[in-house]
């Protein structure tokens, strides 16, 4: 029984990690700029499609026809060789193999630019307007981003292979000194979980231990006073928006091998992530992370057959159900600060 529970716990981790990353970005934006960003899921999706694009470039190949050899169908054999491999040799092959992690390097500057552009271009004008209008404009932006991606990449999911070394399953049970082959877990999910841990840790460290982070935290607590001290808080908040976009983007990149991205992947995650943010408490970064993992794991437990036998359909609604209960009983969420959005 313990093994089953432990396995479900592990299964919840990767989804929980994705929720936590998106919710973290949402909370960063809400906590700094006070904007409810419905386009945040679209940023996750854009990140995922950065990975798709990078792989498309990396796998551009030359086709040479070798008449001396025949393919199994009897036609002359076509030899395909990725250009990168031709130019860079073995390193190119590694690059193609590791295209998903490699795309992170390219995604970071792109998402930073997208985030800053979005904030300066549109969202800036919505600070003084009601939350409803912020929701509406970002919702519209999300539709636009989604449709642009759809018209470029088509409506079908585009699978991304994971690096060959990281395929297969890890025997976590054996690592922990339990019986072998009882608790196995796909390596890439483990990688995703660790990656999420690193990103979350980095964001917290950035906010906690750098001067920039200190100023941002001060600005979150009292924007006006920080502004009066002669600090250009607006610019720092803009950068935080870019940072939130980067977090969403890299979360999307690393998730592509687990779930082939299509144009509405962002919306699918967004709705859940909002729920996560609310459960964790609006504006609370630790709350967002904790609630992300908590709900991911809860969802995983709810999809156990034993649980479903007692409450049919619970796996479909558990997250929303938790959100409803939390909102009605404790509106500021699990770790929300007193008085922040406590309506």
């Amino acid at each position: 029984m313990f093994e089953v529970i432990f396995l479900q716990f592990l299964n919840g981790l990767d989804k929980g990690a994705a929720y936590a990353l998106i919710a973290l970005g949402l909370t960063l934006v809400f906590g700094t700029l006070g904007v409810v960003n419905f386009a945040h899921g679209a940023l996750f999706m854009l990140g995922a499609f950065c990975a798709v694009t990078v792989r498309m470039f990396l796998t551009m190949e030359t086709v040479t026809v070798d008449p001396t050899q025949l393919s199994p169908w009897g036609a002359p054999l076509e030899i395909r060789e990725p250009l990168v491999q031709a130019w860079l040799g073995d390193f190119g092959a590694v690059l193609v193999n590791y295209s998903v992690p490699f795309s992170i390097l390219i995604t970071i500057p792109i998402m930073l630019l997208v985030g800053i552009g979005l904030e300066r271009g549109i969202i800036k004008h919505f600070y003084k307007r009601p939350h409803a209008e912020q929701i509406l404009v970002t919702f519209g932006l999300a539709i636009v981003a989604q449709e642009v991606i759809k018209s470029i990449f088509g409506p079908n999911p585009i699978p991304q292979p994971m690096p060959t070394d990281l395929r297969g399953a890890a025997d976590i049970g054996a690592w922990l000194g339990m019986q072998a082959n009882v608790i196995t877990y796909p390596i890439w999910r483990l990688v995703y979980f660790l990656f999420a841990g690193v990103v979350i840790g980095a964001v917290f460290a950035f906010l906690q231990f750098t001067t920039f982070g200190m100023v941002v935290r001060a600005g979150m607590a009292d924007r006006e006073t920080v502004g009066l001290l002669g600090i250009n808080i607006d610019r720092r908040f803009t950068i935080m928006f870019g940072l939130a976009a980067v977090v969403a983007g890299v979360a999307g990149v690393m998730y592509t091998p687990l779930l082939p991205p299509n144009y509405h992947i962002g919306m699918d995650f967004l709705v859940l992530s909002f729920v996560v943010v609310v459960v964790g408490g609006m504006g609370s970064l630790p709350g967002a992370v904790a609630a992300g993992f908590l709900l991911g794991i809860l969802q995983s437990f709810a999809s156990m057959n034993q649980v479903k036998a007692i409450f049919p359909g619970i796996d479909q609604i558990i997250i929303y159900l938790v959100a409803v209960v939390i909102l009605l009983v404790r509106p500021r969420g699990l770790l929300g600060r007193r008085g922040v959005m406590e309506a």
Partner: protein
Amino acid sequence: MNPALMSRNDLFLLLGFTLVVLAMPIWLAPFGAGYPDLLQRFMIYGIFAVGFNILFGLTGYLSFGHAAFFGVGSYTAVWSLKLLTLDAIPALFFAVIISGLFALVIGFLCLRRSGIYFSILTLAFAQMSYNLAYSVLTPITNGETGLQLTLSDPRVIDAAVGHTFVGQPIPTLLGTPIGGYAGFYFCAGFLIITFFIAQRIAGSPFGMMLKAIKSNQTRMQFTGFNTRPYALSAFVISGMYAGLAGALLAVTDPLAGAERMQWTASGEVVLMTILGGVGTLVGPVIGAWIIKYFENILSALNDNILARFFDFLPDGVDTFFVKVIGKFVGDGWHLTLGLVFVIIVIFLPGGIMEGVRRVAAMFDRSGGKTSTRTQAAE
């Protein structure tokens, strides 16, 4: 009509609206929209948007879950058509009642919070209904296939009266099948009635109370009003409107699927209301018409039609135009919708109605001749 009961402007508005709606098959024909299927959709989504506006426009509560009531209305109507009788009246009646009850329960819980929390609560409830309709409730909703009428349905009342049908069962109104223009006028009647009701609500003391909730709920509470019953009534009324619209959709096209309850469907009615003009009476209806019109017209356009349209341009230039515009029509019409929506929210938060008002004001200042009556009849 008694002038004390209804102001002149309101009366003109209602009459003008009635005329415009009833004459739709005529004046929409040149735009390629004069066919009953689309006109029925215009009416149905008009009702949906008018109802949504009673909640969002008057009280300011932004619900992201209204599609749930729409879906419940559809399912109830189809079940009534299956179990009781093919007549539309009981179907609509039960749909309104059931979706109203459903809205009462959900509204009672959701209205404990306001602002963004309210939006997320309604969203959560709607997603729960949608997910359940797809999974556990399959015996009721028929899951992905959607609920359909079949020949072997019991139809207790029809059987008792001795009605028998041959061929595909079609919903009827007192014996006449609802389809084509009959279906349109049936829906149009409901749109006009619901519009009238919405007009009366907006002008009544109850409506004033709702508007007061929108502008300052805290002050209302301090002056001793318990605002929640009022907000809840608005929520239930708009839920009933959504149920009626869903039922009409099921009656004119007897197939109910769970995707009607998805949150994108809730988003659509928000788009309609904002596009037309939130808080105005006519705006949401116009928004619904525009979105449904372009959904049908733009999504039907393809590169061939565009190529013919741009034929007069020199070669090369016309293919360029076709390529560029082709991205915005056909499957890509949602892109156009999204862009228009963003532009509206940024520059014209009051929607099309605010645009009309601004243009009218401009004419008033320069010419001073344009009557306010045309504006009232809009």
